[in-house]
């Protein structure tokens, strides 16, 4: 049972309203976090140097849309820095003792924090424009964790994490039997529609890559998954899907390092169980970014993380993906998911692939590290009750960008971005635009005839031999 939005613009669980003495509890959590985690230095320095120059305002798509004071990144961050200054710096404590009065953390203040820190997608675009290097995304990340310790969390996020950690084991509550069914069904599709023998290897020990897509892809994005499987098959890649854990989604990233840690550790445990080497992430931005925290949570020998775009790009460059002569004719544009693009980690691979397989690829502006968030980042996309906020306020800028490209296909290699962008297009009347995964397009242009011929010529399990050759290479 939930209470209707009213107190907050998102649903929270009932027990969120039953927590008493929240200021004390939040400060206790804050103290524990400062002691055991790494936020202290950043907060200390940020609290000192923040210059209120307002450059961040112009870089935030939300402020651009609403023009409201509370939506200026620096203003929002100040909500937390103020608490830090007052309770965790010598000067603040001293001033409060000496002068009395001044700022105190109250129940109302906590409500205000709850509301405002979920008006930020933690896309970190504003970090690029702050002369003081203040990472408002980091502050949003931390503030949400502290709020979570007094149970102020959007219901949609807790429910997903609960399902993943205490329920069936994944955010979409897909039981293993249903997963296997789905995979078999997709294999059939390959046979019927492409006359190709493409497998979804389940629980194969010793595979190089263990695959973690956003689990929702199994329900919503079969073409993306088929694209993934096709790339693995034609390139002779060694991969598997583990039945103990097949979900890359990690909503812990959006509200609690405690949850995030558990989810990442589970992922790593599955790779170890299957004696795999690498984590292969499907088309999902935040799943990738959370997996990149593997070393943070599991130490230096956590498995390497490979994003499916990096994998596909490498195979394409090495000529291991046979392509048809026809290209995608319609105009295509690319949306950079913040979680893989903001720091410049994955920006060129998708473009090179798209330029190879599409005849008319156009950029959105700005792009790459300076892209605008889809508007549903930071987990907000799963909060259905704030759709209007997401698409109208957060997503306005994105809608303008998309419209300006005149593209038919909007490629977004991220489950969350896809859902959000579909809604943005709907709510902004962009009817002609199809939001699609990059692997969906790859699937259209892979030459399965060549793959089949190659398989027959080599008369044997081609995958196995290429795999062995690859293992040697490495």
């Amino acid at each position, binding site marked *: 049972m939930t209470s209707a939005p009213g107190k907050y613009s998102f649903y929270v669980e009932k027990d969120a309203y039953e927590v008493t003495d929240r200021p004390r509890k939040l400060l206790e959590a804050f103290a*524990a976090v400062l002691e055991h985690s790494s936020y202290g230095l950043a907060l200390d320095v940020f609290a000192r140097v923040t210059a209120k120059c307002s*450059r961040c305002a112009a870089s935030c798509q939300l402020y651009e849309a609403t023009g409201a004071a509370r939506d200026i990144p620096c203003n929002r961050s100040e909500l937390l820095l103020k608490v830090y200054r007052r309770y965790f710096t010598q000067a603040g404590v001293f001033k409060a003792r000496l002068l009395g009065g001044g700022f105190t953390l109250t129940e109302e203040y906590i409500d205000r924090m709850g509301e405002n820190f979920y008006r930020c997608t933690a896309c970190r675009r504003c970090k690029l424009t702050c002369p*003081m290097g203040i*990472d408002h995304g980091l502050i949003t990340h931390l503030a949400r964790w502290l709020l979570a310790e007094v149970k102020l969390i959007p219901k949609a996020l807790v429910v997903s994490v609960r399902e993943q950690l205490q329920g069936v084991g994944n955010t979409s509550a897909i039981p293993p039997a249903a997963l296997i069914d789905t995979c078999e069904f997709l294999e059939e599709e390959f046979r019927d529609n492409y006359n190709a023998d493409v497998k979804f290897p389940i629980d194969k020990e010793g595979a190089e890559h263990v695959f973690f897509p956003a689990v929702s892809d199994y329900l919503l994005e079969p073409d993306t998954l088929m694209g993934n499987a096709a790339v693995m098959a034609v390139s002779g890649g060694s991969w598997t899907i583990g039945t103990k854990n097949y979900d890359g989604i990690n909503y812990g990233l959006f509200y609690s390092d*405690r949850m995030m*840690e558990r989810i990442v550790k589970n992922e790593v445990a599955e790779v170890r169980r299957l004696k795999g080497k690498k984590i292969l992430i499907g088309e999902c931005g935040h799943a990738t970014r959370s997996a990149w925290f593997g070393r943070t949570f599991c130490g230096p020998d956590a498995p390497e993380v490979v994003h499916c775009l990096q994998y596909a790009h490498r195979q394409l460059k090495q000529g291991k993906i046979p392509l048809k002569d026809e290209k995608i004719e319609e105009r295509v544009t690319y949306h950079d998911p913040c979680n893989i693009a903001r720091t410049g980690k994955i920006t060129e691979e998708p473009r090179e692939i798209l330029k190879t397989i599409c005849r008319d690829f156009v950029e959105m502006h700005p792009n790459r590290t300076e892209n605008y968030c889809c508007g549903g980042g930071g987990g907000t996309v799963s909060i259905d009750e704030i759709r209007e906020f997401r698409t109208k306020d957060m997503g306005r800028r994105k809608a303008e960008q998309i419209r300006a490209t005149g593209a038919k296909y909007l490629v977004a290699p991220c489950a969350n971005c896809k859902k959000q962008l579909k809604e943005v297009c709907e709510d902004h009347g962009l009817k002609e635009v199809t939001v699609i995964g990059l692997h969906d397009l790859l699937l259209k242009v892979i030459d399965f005839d060549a793959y089949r011929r190659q398989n027959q010529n080599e008369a044997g399990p081609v995958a196995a031999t290429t795999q062995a050759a690859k293992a040697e290479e490495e």
Partner: protein
Amino acid sequence: MDAMLEWARGPVFVFSLTFMLLGLLRHVLVTFYEMRRTLGRAGDKVLPYRQILKATAQWLFPAGKIRHEPLFSVTSMIFHVALLVVPLFLGGHILLWQRGLGISWPAIPNALADVLTVVAVVAAVALVVQRAAARASRDLSRASDYLMPLIVALPFATGFLAMHPALNPFPHQAMLFLHVMSGNLVLVLLPITRLSHAVLLPSLQLVAELGWRWPLDAGSKVEKALGKQGEPI
């Protein structure tokens, strides 16, 4: 007046300078120590150094960042250049150092110093006006944000008047006193206000990155500290 001027130039200046140096040194040491500690216990110690260096350099020499907010950026940059150059390279100041400690270095021509001084004052006022004029910065600003540029410009304005008796309607000695005292004030404020970015700036990009470098098991340790182990989600 002479005695007061001597006092301002003597003990008060020595105090302010020492306070500033020690204060800033403390920032540097504490930050450095904390950076090492944070990295030392981080689960993931592999940092994108090139990217961090690049961002740091971009903000130390922010010419490339002008396009975002041209007017404000240019004003701010000019302001900073004047702030750094004039106090350190003014002939008159160097002479004092030479007299006091016997050290000296090349000075900028007085005419240039004059121009830069006026620029500093004008830029400070312009910054305040721009702050008040734009909606976003107005919504953000605390009183001290308006005051700070003016306080910093004070030694420049008074210094200029002291150097140009013809333009100065006030007694020369009094002006000089104000100049020295406002300079002292800025020195004292340096380590204890946001002016400390003067020494912290080169560390900021790295500091921000380190905020994400959590120790192994940070989450479970917090969980334990809060007595929340085994608590259902």
